[in-house]
């Protein structure tokens, strides 16, 4: 059902776990579909300066979900790490799916879920910044 790349990221994910004192946390999923995921982000520089230059310094995930959800979580972290927030916002579910060598049609929503979590995190971060300013 899954290709080697998906199985690889499911079996040996590099980005799972928590980040201590993250700058922002994003979530997605619901119990009905069975996937629940959390992304922890460290932003650099953490404070001040225009949002445009900010980069995702570190990112980790915790995912309760199927093999595709775990693999997609690992992939979104790989894709987002080192990117500016603007670049990260532009990551699409197609980017995640094709980086995994295409997910089965039934599992595309897993790729959608992980991009949702990333956008949730970046959205929260921007709002938080606005408030501070």
């Amino acid at each position, binding site marked *: 059902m*899954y290709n080697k790349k998906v*199985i690889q990221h*499911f*079996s040996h*994910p590099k980005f*799972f*776990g*928590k980040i201590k004192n993250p700058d922002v946390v994003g979530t997605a999923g619901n*119990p*009905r*579909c*069975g*996937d*629940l995921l*959390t992304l922890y982000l460290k932003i650099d520089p953490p404070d001040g300066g225009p949002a445009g230059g900010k980069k995702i310094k570190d990112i980790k995930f*915790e*995912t*309760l*979900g*199927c*093999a*595709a*959800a*775990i693999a997609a979580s690992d992939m979104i972290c790989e894709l987002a790490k080192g990117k500016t927030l603007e670049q990260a916002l532009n990551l699409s579910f197609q980017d995640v799916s094709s980086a995994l060598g295409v997910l089965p049609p*039934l599992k595309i*929503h897993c790729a959608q879920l992980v991009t949702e979590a990333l956008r949730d995190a970046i959205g929260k971060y921007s709002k938080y910044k606005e408030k501070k300013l």
Partner: protein
Amino acid sequence: MTPKNRIYLDYAATTPVDKKVFKAMGPYFSQTYGNPSSIHSWGEEAQAAIDKARDQVAKFLNCKLSEIVFTGSASESDNLAIRGLIKALKRRKQEGEKVHIITSSIEHKAVLETCHDLEKDGIKITYLPVGKDGIVDIADLKAEINPETDLVSIMYVNNEMGAIQPIEKIGRLISEINQTKKHRIFFHADAVQAANWVNCKVDDLKVDLLTLSGHKIYGPKGVGVLYIRQGTPISPLITGGDQEWGLRAGTENVANIVGMGAAISQISNSKFLISKKVKKLRDKLVKGVLTKIPGSNLTGSEKPEERAPHIANFSFLGIEGEAIMLSLDQEGIAASTGSACTSRALLPSHVLMAMGLSELEAHSSLRVSLGRYTTAKEIDIFLKTLPRVVERLRKISGR
């Protein structure tokens, strides 16, 4: 990367064809290949093989030869039982007379979706609930039976968690009600997961229709049986030939039918011993999982007499079933799950939801099913592997 000594713990999905069964089927491909409908000796030889298989099935069910119909699968048998009966009854009914079917909310999809489909044609269907034990309450059934009820269809043993339904009691209730009812109720039981383990004598169960499958009893895939009690009205769904008493057109799958007969005759000889052995292994498995893995639960009744010996269904807090299943597969172990992630609908198992499990519990389910060839060593390896798999996935989920 396929481990050499793989461990198959998915016998409720399918079983390997028994060697003796395979041998019995062998000649009916290229050697004794006649069409059973032909009256020359080629045809007669094939017909004799079918007659023998029919006799083997009839002995197992303790019924007449003329009450056995071979089909292409148990799903087809369920369809023939339900749709075939309703079709025949409708032709007898007067305009405005209603059709009413009672079934349970934990049936196999072959029954459940057939009922959903009939509902679209205006047929009234009642879906009985089950308790936390996964068992239908006779009082609920009794309360739902009305003067218009035509059919009760309840499975014998549930395929996801192994609960044994009180088929004998239901049969007794229905035959009592039928003594005073203007038009009678017919009783169908899907006994696909029951045949290996529990009494399937049709007179004890008082069923009018009973479904069996070949590939769940160490026979071939692609053959099923429908028992039809004499006098039960049934119209064929597949027309175009006189095969199977005119109830199932199409040249018979002789080799598969021979395999069905051979497989079923083997059950009678070994039922007691194998049940005992499998039950012991299942108990070891359940005890091992529950003690070694915190946050694990056994789904369904705790009373051994209410469970078939071969199935144990667990849920594991904080992880998802497909991920467990795939992780086990990588270690060379086959099991299955009721998680939505393996279904097209992306909804968790209707059986586990009907039993009152939460969505997350149903998503985290793992069905382990044992069989004739399961060994204590295999259970030991499983019990060593599963805690590791669960622990890893819980680390990933952070729960």
